[in-house]
């Protein structure tokens, strides 16, 4: 699919915002320490706590990746939007200086 600059900026912004939302949603996927057996006795509970910590750190990393990449895409969308706006201005100016010959 071919985009105009402003169209591409709009799509990038949408993807970036969806990623930012995904960051929050991913963090909420932690089923909690009990699902890993973290409340168990002795070494069983210790292993459950280790496994939960591993999964929780992984979810935190996925969440940060999504938030950071979402911000990157929105930032590029802003830059692209400015560039596209500038292009449109130049196009309009050129059209005004060179009116069509009847």
């Amino acid at each position, binding site marked *: 699919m071919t985009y105009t600059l402003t169209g591409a900026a709009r799509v990038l912004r949408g993807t970036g915002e969806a990623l930012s939302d995904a960051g929050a949603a991913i963090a909420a996927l*932690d089923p909690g320490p009990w699902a890993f057996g973290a409340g168990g006795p002795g070494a069983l509970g210790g292993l459950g706590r280790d496994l939960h910590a591993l999964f929780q750190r992984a979810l935190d990393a996925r969440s940060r*990746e999504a938030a950071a990449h979402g911000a990157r895409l929105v930032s590029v969308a802003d830059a692209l939007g400015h560039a596209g706006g500038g292009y449109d201005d130049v196009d309009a100016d050129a059209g005004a200086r060179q009116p069509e010959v009847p």
Partner: protein
Amino acid sequence: MDALARLEPVARELMRRVDAALVTLGAPVEHPVWGLLRRLGTTPADAVAFFAGVDPRPLADAAAALRDQADGYETAEVPVELPWRGTAGETYATHAADLRKHLAGPGDDSMAQRLRATADCADDVADWYRRARDRLARALAEVLTSAQAVAVRSCPAAGEVVTARVMDRVPATAVVAAADIGARVLAAAAEAVTDGEVLHHRWRPSLGELAFRPGAQAPLRSEATIEVRPA
């Protein structure tokens, strides 16, 4: 309902007697149950109750949600090819390609692949619990039909006041039988713990945060030049 869910209620009373025997009557000094009690820090009845109470379904649910999100990353739009010539257009195309690659590949590493790896980790933990439950169920099936189980019926039940008279009526063979049952059940739990520790070590290095590494060209800036050419 798996085998452990069926066997645990049947074995509960036996396991209580095993625990009570270990706590009140002890076990022969050289019996392997002592090492297993030290290794696991839990009694046989508590170990069985723990595995019987674990529900791995929330882990599988989390894994499915993570894979759905990875699908979303792989279908997300990041426009790369634009009708934009010149240095600014090339800089944009290079940077956008880097952004898309970081999100969903191709290549060995991307945000989508890290999501899938995290989902695989959750599934592995759920599978580990299923294997552990199967191990415990096999151990319970063995001990429930063993001669030791018959002998342990003469041991005091949990909560029974253990007086000298009660202890006198417990034969030495019953004490050894309780230790044997405890050792069999704890050995199954110890194998599960070892298996789980291997799983933890295997996943630990591969779930860290993925850093964004753009290519050689500088990221797009809003002041980048636009070169307008006639169509």
